[in-house]
Each structure stands twice: as structure tokens, then as C-alpha cells.
């Protein structure tokens, strides 16, 4: 306690308030250690495991390079690599082309139905990836696909028009699934672009084509390149599409190969780890180049934070064409997938729509789901896990952000990097790393719900960082300083000033993490055990068991719940906006 009396300066030599133990340091130290543990330790174990032989009761594990030799001496690996790159690049290009076209239409033209489009962009949040893939199987599989059946009906043939179980099919489904992300990224880029830059080119006498080629495209280049890399990384990490569409016909990519290596008998965790490390190197490279491009983009300084008046082009009669494109897109991404799920959920046995099937409409599947033994457990687990991990992540990252943005502690930028590491870890790799880590160190965590909790908190740390950084950057430093000048301690000012002011951002981030936790599949699939299933695992199991009707009913209920959640999020976080990032 610093004395306030008017004593002469000498008396205070022994009184050093700085050295006094402050709860602030304890809290900060604790948070930093937790983040470091979560982000680094599993990674270390993953690397360690990739150099170990599988240990059995008879033969203990030893150091080896065999996993990498197996992985790279195998000619299949080359195919694997080629498949992965083809799939990821194809997906990224498809998503980027669709997303950019849509972004240009909404931002720079007078196309009707625009507001609908912003609403559509949050749909991928609501439809979990696995349900999207399943619904596209219903639509475009060679045997039961509605599109094939419809075309066969029209032309009176039995030719297979579209086959979703192919590389093209995989790219199509994943590309559509990621198009909304590309749309959001490119919308932001178009918005940040000052139209006066194009107008001054026009005043200089450039033609429309010249402006597009020499100004618009050049200015948009960093955004396009960065978006491509983000989408590439996202798709090379995708698990649902390769697992559901690729594996049945033997098209393997890294994620499905990792899954296969673990689930083959005997499971080859070392080989999976070697594949995982390769995948990690690819995603790290992607993220690295993306951040390089974004950083260089600074020199284009088209982002000024100023709201520009959007200059829209009058398309004339062509606007009906663009509106038509919108409608087709909405059909592909939302309406058809949802309708097909809804249809299938109302049947007793899966059958294609017909007058006869219509007479068999029943709610039996919903009743089954409600009484299904593992559904109750899974819903409860998902509920607890999503609430728990969202709360933990938001509080942890609020403190981390505060340290990074507000203190002058040396090396604070490392902390930011540390909390962002999980961003480069594909969900499956993260699951593998955590599995290896807690199997090795023991402690009884593996096999309990806690391992899922740890996985979710780790995976979603970067999201918490992003939401907190956005809102904390907007928080003027002087708001805290004036609390300090008013005599408030660090803890009081954090509790009474910082947290209340961050509330909208905290809430938006919290809801986002709740949603992504509910949808999480690729980490959970390696970490669940009987009794700790979550909803996405139940969907996965139903698919494996061929319970399509029950799966659809459960999917419809899940989508409805998430829809309510997202609407709440939109309503609460108007300023911060919950969006897929």
C-alpha cells in the first residue's frame, strides 16, 4: 500500500509499490501458460509420434524414420499429394469465381434481391458441412440422386448424368460450401476499394476495360490472392467431403488418408502423424504467404476505414440475368439441400419424391430421433461442450488480447502468434495431435469429455482472438487510463470498464464459437468414445449405418436450432456481425 501522507521522500525508499504482488501478474501468467500449453504441447507430441514406431505389449516403441519412409517411398503418396492439390485448388478456384462474381454483383451493380444475398452468406454457419454433403448425395448420387432421376425421367434413359462420387463432384460440393466465404472476403475487398481511384482513372481518359485491367484488378490483386490462399487451406483441410464422397470410390486426399491410417487395423498412428506433418507444412505455407500478401497489401492503402459511397453500375436489362444467377445459387446452396433433407426426414424409408411417397409422409423419424438412445447424450454433450468452450475461449482470449494490445511486455507479439497457431492445424491433425499427446502423458483425460473440451478450446482460440482484437482495437486506450487515474486497480478497471465495453464483441464471438463447436466433426471423430458422442458424430454414425431418414430428421432439427441461434447472434451483434471467417 503506498502511503499518501506528506512524508519526506527518503522515508519512501523502502516503500516500492511496483514490487508488490499484484493479482494482475498471477492472472496474466496463468493465461499465458494455458495458451502455451494448448498451442504447443500437442504439436510437439505429434512431431514426436511421427518419429516413433507403434508400440505393442511385446515390442516397445522406438525411434524411427520409417513412418516418413513409408509415407514417401510409396508411389500412392504422389497420387495422394496430387489429389489433395487438385481438390483444394479446384475448390478454391470454384469458390473464388462464384464468390467474386456474387460480390461484384452485390457491391457494384444494381441487381435486384441484393439484401437477400447478405442473409444467404451466413448459411454455411447454419448447415453443418456433413449435412451439406449428405444432401448433395441425395441430389446427385448416380443411383438415388434426384437430379439424375429427374433427367432420366425427362429423357427416358437410364444414363447417369452427374456423379457426385468423383473428383469433380467433390470440388463441386466443397466449392459451393466455401463460396459464401469467398463472397464475404471479396465483398470486404470491394468495399474497401475507394471508387474515386477508379473515377480518377476515368477522368484521366481510361476506358472501362482499361480501368478494370489497370486499376480495379491491380488494386484487388492482394485480396484475390489472399482469398485464394485462405480457401485453398480451408479445402485441403476439409474432411467431410473427402471422407463421404472420395473414400467410397478410392479418391484419397491427405485428410482421408490420415483417417484411414488411424482406422485401419492395426491402426498406424505413426504414418498418420507423418501425413499430418506434411499437411501441416502445406497449410503453414498457405497461411504464411497469405499473411505476407495481406501485409504487403498495406501499401495499396485502399483500406482507410472510411465508408465509401458505393458506385453502382446500371446493368439495364442484364440485371434480370444477374438476379437469375442469384436465384440459381440460392437453390444450389440452401434451398435444394434443405428441401431434400426435409423430404427425406418425412419418410419412413428413404425414397425419391413421388405421389406414392407423398402419401407415406410421416413424422415417425422425428419420434425415432427423440427416443434414440445416443441422441440425448450427444445433444447434452454438445450443449455442455459448446457453452463451456465458448466461454473459456472468450475469457482467455480477452486477457491475451489485452496483454498483446495494452501492455509493453517484451515478446507480447509472440503470444499473439502462439494463440494463432491452431489456425494452421487442420481439425483432423489437431485431433490426432491431442490424441497422441494425452495417450502418451496419460492422466485419464483420454476417453473423457475433457479431451473434446481441450480440443475445442484449442481449435477455437484463434476465433476468440479475432473477435476480441476487433473490439479491443476500437476501445480507446484512454478509457482504461482514466479508470487508472480515478484510482481503480487493474482488476477493477478490467472488470468494470474493459469487459462491459467488450460485451457486444464477446457475445458475438461466444455465439460464433458455440455454433462452430456444435458442428465440429473432424477433431471430434478421433477423440470421442462411447458415452462422449457429440451431435456431429451421431450424424456421422447414422450415415455409416445407413439410417438416412433419421439422419435427415436430426439434421432438420439441428439446422432449425442453429438458425435460431444465428438470428439471435445477428440481432445482438449488429456492430460486430457474426460471420464465417
Amino acid at each position, binding site marked *: 500500500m503506498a502511503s499518501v*501522507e506528506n*512524508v519526506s521522500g527518503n522515508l519512501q525508499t523502502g516503500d516500492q509499490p511496483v514490487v508488490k504482488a499484484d493479482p494482475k501478474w498471477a492472472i496474466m501468467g496463468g493465461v499465458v501458460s494455458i495458451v502455451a500449453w494448448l498451442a504447443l504441447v500437442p504439436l510437439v507430441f505429434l512431431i514426436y509420434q511421427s518419429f516413433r514406431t507403434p508400440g505393442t505389449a511385446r515390442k516397445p516403441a522406438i525411434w524411427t524414420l520409417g513412418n516418413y519412409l513409408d509415407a514417401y517411398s510409396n508411389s500412392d503418396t504422389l497420387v495422394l499429394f496430387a489429389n489433395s492439390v487438385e481438390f483444394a485448388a479446384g475448390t478454391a478456384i470454384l469458390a473464388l469465381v462464384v464468390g467474386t462474381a456474387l460480390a461484384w454483383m452485390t457491391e457494384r451493380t444494381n441487381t435486384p434481391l441484393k439484401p437477400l444475398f447478405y442473409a444467404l452468406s451466413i448459411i454455411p454457419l447454419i448447415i453443418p458441412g456433413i449435412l451439406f454433403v449428405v444432401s448433395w448425395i441425395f441430389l446427385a448420387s448416380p443411383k438415388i440422386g434426384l437430379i439424375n432421376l429427374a433427367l432420366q425421367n425427362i429423357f427416358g434413359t437410364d444414363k447417369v448424368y452427374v456423379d457426385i462420387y468423383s473428383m469433380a463432384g467433390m470440388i463441386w460440393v466443397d466449392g459451393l460450401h466455401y463460396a459464401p466465404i469467398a463472397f464475404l472476403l471479396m465483398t470486404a475487398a470491394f468495399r474497401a476499394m475507394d471508387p474515386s481511384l477508379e473515377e480518377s482513372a476515368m477522368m484521366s481518359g481510361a476506358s472501362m476495360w482499361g480501368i478494370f485491367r489497370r486499376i480495379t484488378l491491380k488494386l484487388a490483386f492482394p485480396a484475390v490472392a489472399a482469398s485464394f490462399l485462405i480457401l485453398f487451406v480451408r479445402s485441403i483441410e476439409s474432411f467431410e467431403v473427402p471422407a463421404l464422397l472420395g473414400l467410397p470410390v478410392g479418391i484419397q486426399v491427405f485428410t482421408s488418408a490420415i483417417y484411414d491410417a488411424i482406422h485401419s487395423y492395426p491402426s498406424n498412428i505413426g504414418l498418420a502423424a507423418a501425413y499430418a506433418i506434411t499437411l501441416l507444412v502445406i497449410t503453414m505455407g498457405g497461411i504464411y504467404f497469405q499473411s505476407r500478401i495481406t501485409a504487403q497489401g498495406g501499401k495499396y492503402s485502399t483500406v482507410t476505414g472510411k465508408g465509401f459511397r458505393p458506385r453502382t453500375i446500371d446493368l439495364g436489362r442484364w440485371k434480370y440475368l444477374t438476379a437469375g444467377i442469384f436465384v440459381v445459387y440460392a437453390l444450389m446452396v440452401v434451398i435444394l439441400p434443405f428441401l431434400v433433407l426435409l423430404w427425406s426426414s418425412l419418410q419412413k424409408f428413404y425414397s425419391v419424391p413421388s405421389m406414392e411417397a407423398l402419401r407415406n409422409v410421416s413424422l415417425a423419424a422425428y419420434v425415432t430421433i427423440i427416443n434414440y438412445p445416443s441422441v440425448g447424450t450427444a445433444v447434452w454433450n454438445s450443449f455442455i461442450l459448446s457453452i463451456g468452450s465458448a466461454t473459456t475461449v472468450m475469457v482467455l482470449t480477452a486477457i491475451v488480447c489485452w496483454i498483446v494490445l495494452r501492455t509493453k511486455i517484451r515478446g507480447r507479439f509472440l503470444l499473439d502468434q502462439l494463440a494463432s497457431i491452431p489456425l494452421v492445424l487442420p481439425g483432423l491433425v489437431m485431433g490426432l495431435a491431442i490424441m497422441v499427446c494425452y495417450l502418451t502423458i496419460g492422466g485419464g483425460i483420454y476417453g473423457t469429455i475433457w479431451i473434446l473440451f481441450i480440443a475445442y478450446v484449442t481449435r477455437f482460440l484463434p476465433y476468440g482472438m479475432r473477435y476480441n482484437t476487433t473490439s479491443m482495437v476500437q476501445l480507446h486506450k484512454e478509457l482504461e487510463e*482514466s479508470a487508472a487515474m480515478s484510482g481503480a486497480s487493474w482488476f477493477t478497471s478490467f472488470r468494470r470498464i474493459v469487459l462491459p465495453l467488450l460485451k457486444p464483441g464477446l457475445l458475438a464471438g461466444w455465439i460464433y464459437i458455440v455454433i462452430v463447436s456444435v458442428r465440429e466433426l473432424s477433431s471430434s471423430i478421433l477423440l470421442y468414445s462411447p458415452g462422449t458422442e457429440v451431435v456431429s458424430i451421431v450424424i456421422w454414425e447414422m450415415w455409416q449405418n445407413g439410417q438416412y431418414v433419421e439422419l435427415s430428421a436430426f439434421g432438420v432439427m439441428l439446422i432449425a436450432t442453429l438458425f435460431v441461434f444465428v438470428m439471435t447472434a445477428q440481432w445482438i451483434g449488429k456492430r460486430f456481425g457474426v460471420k464465417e471467417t
Partner: protein
Amino acid sequence: MLTVKGLNTEYPSQKGPPVKAAQDVTFEVPAGKFFTLLGPSGCGKTTTLRSIAGLERPVGGEIVVNGRTVYSSEKKIFIPPNQRNFGMVFQSYAIWPHMTVFANAAFPLEVRKTKMTKTEIREKVMRVLSAVALEQYADREATKLSGGQQQRLALARALVMEPELLLLDEPLSNLDAKLRDRMRFELKRIQRELGLTTIYVTHDQGEALALSHEIAVMNEGRIVQVGTPREIYEHPRTKFVADFIGTTNFIDGTVLGMDNASGRWNVRTPAGDMLVHAVQTLAPNMAVTVSIRPEDVEVFEEAAPAGSGLNLTSGMVDQKVFLGDFVDFQIKIGEFVLLSRAHPSMRTPIGDKIHVRMNPEKCVAIPDISSARSAA
């Protein structure tokens, strides 16, 4: 009351050695005085204020308030800002948007160590809110206040804790011109009534002159001159001070010698020989710059009434600018152009002859640093 001794601050830069902000800043403020740190942006004035507040940690020096050392590099003392009991008004006001007006002002009393009852807090807060004429807005959302009201609330919040020291960081810079003028009077009234020792930071010389008992002019991290507003304005010690505060004519010249009749130094300049006021000791042949304010350059259409020891000359009107409450003349004397600020009734046309009179008391000779060094 406040003593700042040998204050040095620096902050790390991306590359290379740390950037020095305040360097060897030393000054003293007696109790109850209004002291201003004035200078261009980046001169170290805000850093100095924030070091006094405890929001920044200096690398060297000592800060003592009322006999209490709040910072000393030698004795390794650093009292954190929340234990210093200084009130501060920030440039952005830093009004907490999630609280009402009352809650904003009550915050310092609620968080202090010695607990107060609700009624005590209410009474104190209402008293200070009425002092800044905000009592009828007590229950309003703080963000619903206008700029001027937010500024008064920020002041109330700083005053409610009965601070030992009031620190003001450019509090008027976010207000529009009219409101700024009014708040200037308001601030002066409140400070004088409460007799609070106040440190004020600004880059606006008008504010500094209007409010302060004493001003310290800062440049490149150092204090260049400390004095009353009048001393600073009328007798700047360096070219920087003369140039930064108000508009001035600079006339380069050479010291001729002492004028025996008036006891003043005589300086040869392109605008003729003139008698000057010397702030520092001069010597013959020394290179000096004479600074004279445009309003001290008196102009006459007829030959100026002679007075003993006044500088008289004449020139030709080269340009003039009518600004409403005064008119600026550019007068050509030989090749030299002298700026004069005159009453708007002066209507001498361009090209006409005009007579000029300058009081030597107002012609301040500042030795050129380079020549002063070589003369030493």
C-alpha cells in the same frame, strides 16, 4: 508543490536505438498555479504529462508532488497511477459509454480504498456536477451528451476525487471554435476558484496564453523557455519560441554597439539600423535575429510623431489583406518585406509610401546560436 527534475523518457522503436521523447525536463509548479506545457506535436509535452500521471514510466529523473516522491529513478520509486490521486482529463475525454453521467462521475469514489457510503458519494457527485452545470443530466446516458458536456463531465470526474494535481491533456482540441472559446473561460474560472494546481498540455498558443500563470515552451523533447505568458510573448529567448507563439517578423542583423543615449544596443538590419531589447548579453559584431510582432509595427500615412529613442523608418505598401478586425500590410523597406498589423481604418493604397514606427522595447534581439558559439 510539483517538482519535476531531470525527467528523461524513451520508447522502443521498431529498429535501432530507443526514441528519446522528453529529455532532461526540469520545472517546478507552485501550489494553486496553472502551468502549461506548450509545443508542437512530438515535442514531448504529452509524454511529460503522462509521466507525471504515471501512465508512462520514465527512464530517469524524479517527480515529487507535495513532498511525496511519485517517481525517482535513483530511489527506484514508481507509484502506479491508480495510487497517485491525480485527476486527469484526456484528449478524447474517455467518457465510459456504458455508464450514465452520474456513474461516470461516481466511479473514482467507488473504487477508492477508503469506502464511502452511498449518500456521501451522491452528495459529492452532485456537488461537482453542479459545479460544471451538469446536475440536471445526472441520469442521462453519457453518450447522449454533446461534445462540450462530455468535456465538462470528464472535468467533473477528475475533480470529484479532490485530486492533489489536475492534469489536462489538450482537453479543448476536440471542440469547435466557438465552444472552445467558452470552455476556455469556464476552465479558467473553475481552476482559479478551486485553486487546484493544474498542468495543462496544448499545442495551441492562444489557449496557453489565455489560461496559464506560467508556460513552458517545449521543442524536440526539451524545455526551451519558461515564463509568464507575457514574458514568453514579448521577450522570446529563441527564434523557435518567437516563431511558435504568434506571428512575427524576423530581421537578420549585426550588432553595431551600445547606443549611449538610450542604453540600448544598436543593430544594423536590411530594414535600417534599429535599437533593440536584448534578452541575453550581446557584443559588437554579433549576428542576431530581431523579432518584432506585426501589431508592434505601427504605420502612419503622415510622418510618424517622433518620440525619443523610437525606431523610425518608411517604406512602400507592397500587399495588403483585409481581415475584418484588422488589416495586414506587407511593407517593402528596400529589399526587405515587413509585416504590419493595423487598425482596419488604415486604407493606404498599394504602392503608396507609408511611415513605420517600432518601439525598441518590442524589437527583441536573439543571438544566432552558431555565431553565439563562435563568439564564446
